[in-house]
């Protein structure tokens, strides 16, 4: 397998100077008055190394600002690394931005021609695939209108369809696969899968973990400009989730730095009059260890520490498990705590045990709430404040999607 691209220990430093003079006049004034603002060095990338072999797909994931786009630009040759080297073969295609060379006053067809020529096709070649591109972008009716009349979705579809027609041996893509509705996204993904099947190579950066899971042979996780992990898609994705979780914890600590509150607010919101409060929510696995991640099919115990400020005779309790996209997986309510638990003391803990959660791997939220028994208003409701990470047990998870984890058994009927 020959290496198509090798990046060795590349780092990239940007000098950021406050009030950098952007005109000659200001520069001269600064030189004369001797008033410099100290330039700050910002290292966007530290010591990143990677290599791509023929026929492999490499994914790059990381938080916003981790350096994915900077890395891809350097790999493409737009700018040079501050240290380190990049060696690449010549013929590669890139899709770093959509609509390069498009002019709003030109029609879709004319812009398509410009885009194609920019990619290296001759006019004749572009004309030959023109209809295919228009068909892929589903713009047959509008292709002869100026692109300033297009909606942003139409514009992006045309740009993507034009760019993807070009057939290089190796393509570098930066997060541009998130355009269009889900049907179009599926078409794009299928096109890239065909690309991979044809033995071509691909490097792409994405936030869509499903795409990364289904396309990549190998994934790199970037965090603050460093390669934190490089390996199998599944493990890279869980590493990414871990990092994201740590980030939000860090951020929550920054925000809630005053009184050490018992609740770690990861995100989400809390509403209610607080006449009754849920002061802490803890999760335990089946071995009674405090955790907020379990394996698919595992059990969980949810402990709620509550308190109420004035003497309330009774309250209602709500507990639900919602998916990342706010789909309700499960919800239950206790209509009257008196009826189930008997009269409750003012401070205490309740526990809820869910023996086996048949949930597919992903991030879920435990939403809990205390309400008056007539459900007229809210005492305390925690929405998306308590995440639960469900991890996979090493199965071929790409064959499953959705929420519920079932084990299909296939057989042939005689």
């Amino acid at each position, binding site marked *: 397998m020959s290496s198509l691209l090798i990046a060795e220990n590349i780092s990239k430093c940007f000098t950021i100077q406050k009030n950098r003079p952007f*005109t000659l006049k200001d520069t001269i004034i600064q030189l004369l008055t001797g008033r410099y603002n100290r330039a700050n060095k910002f290292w966007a990338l530290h010591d990143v190394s990677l290599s791509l072999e023929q026929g492999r797909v490499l994914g790059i994931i990381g938080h916003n600002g981790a350096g994915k786009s900077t890395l891809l630009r350097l790999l493409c040759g737009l*700018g040079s690394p501050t240290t380190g080297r990049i060696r690449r073969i010549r*013929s590669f295609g890139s899709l770093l931005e959509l609509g390069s060379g498009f*002019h709003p*006053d030109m029609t879709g067809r004319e812009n398509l*021609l*410009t885009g194609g*020529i920019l990619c290296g096709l001759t006019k004749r*070649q572009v004309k030959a695939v023109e209809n295919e591109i228009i068909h892929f972008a589903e713009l047959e009716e509008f292709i002869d209108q100026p692109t300033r009349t297009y909606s942003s979705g139409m514009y992006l579809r045309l740009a993507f369809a034009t760019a993807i027609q070009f057939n290089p041996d190796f393509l570098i893509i930066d997060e541009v696969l998130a355009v269009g509705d889900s049907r179009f996204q599926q078409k794009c993904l299928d096109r890239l899968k065909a690309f991979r099947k044809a033995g071509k190579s691909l490097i792409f950066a994405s936030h869509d973990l499903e795409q990364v899971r289904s396309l990549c042979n190998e994934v790199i996780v970037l965090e603050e400009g460093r390669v934190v992990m490089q390996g199998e898609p599944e493990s890279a994705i869980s590493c990414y989730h871990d990092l994201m979780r740590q980030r939000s914890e860090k951020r929550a600590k920054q925000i809630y730095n005053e009184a050490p509150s018992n609740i770690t607010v990861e995100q989400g919101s809390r509403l209610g009059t607080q006449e009754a409060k849920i002061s802490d929510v803890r999760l335990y696995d089946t071995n009674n260890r405090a955790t907020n991640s379990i394996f698919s099919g595992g059990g969980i115990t949810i402990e709620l520490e509550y308190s109420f400020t004035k003497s309330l005779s009774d309250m209602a309790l709500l507990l639900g498990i919602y998916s990342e996209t706010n789909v309700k997986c499960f919800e239950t309510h206790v209509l009257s705590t008196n009826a189930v638990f008997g009269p409750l003391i003012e401070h205490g803990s309740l526990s809820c045990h869910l023996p086996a959660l048949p949930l597919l791997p992903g991030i879920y939220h435990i939403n809990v709430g205390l309400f008056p028994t007539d459900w007229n208003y809210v005492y305390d409701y925690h929405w998306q404040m308590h995440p639960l990470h469900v991890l996979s047990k090493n199965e071929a998870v790409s064959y499953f999607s959705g929420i519920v984890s079932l084990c299909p058994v296939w057989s042939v009927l005689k």
Partner: protein
Amino acid sequence: MPNTRFNISTYYPDLIIHLVKRDFSLRYKGSTIGIFWSLLLPLSQLLVLVFLFGKVIPLKIDAYPAFVFSALLPWIWFSTCLNSSASLFLGNRDLLKKPSFPPFILIIVNTLSNLLSYLLFLPILIFILFLYSRHITPNLLFLPFLLLIQCILIVGLSMIIATMNVFYRDIQHIVGLGVVLLFYLTPVFYRAQSISESYKFVYTLNPVAVMIESYREIFFYGSPPMWSSLIIAMINSVVILIIGYFIYRRRLHHIYDLI
């Protein structure tokens, strides 16, 4: 799906031709009078100059309109290119973000597109020359050579301006001002012979002045251009091109950081 390999010998010319065509059609797209509107610009300038220096402050030059117009047209090519070159890199970020696209193509496209405009106006110049019974001689055949020298000069200057404008945004205004001043310092609407000897050498250093004079030689006077000064102008232009290219290459990866 067509398989492409980046063959520079066909990619660059194809791209340049396509972009020049596109630039041209964009200029006249959407306006009903189109091309005639753009003819109005040089013609109105001509009218003002003829009025001013024919009637108000008479310079007493025969066939003044033909005299001016033969120098005005190449000047317009020069000044339009220089003024538009400043925003070439900044205004085409999307093209620059395509790794296969070398930014200097934009400069060549800009120069050639304005050259095309110049060539379109030529018939009008010929017509005006006829009007004033000037002789059309075979010395006109030197035109391609003059065009070549001017192209080299314009491309060289444009590279410097376009590159530096990315870092210092007021270059655009400085160039605008410079071009206006240069117009008065170049014998477009007056005779270079009128200048006293002590200042003459300044003009031989100014490649634009030499070239404008040369255009006037072949069109208005119908005589061959002054070779000695033209060779100097050629050398100046090539030097400027080399300097421009050097500045462009050195600053190119900084430009990518700022884009």
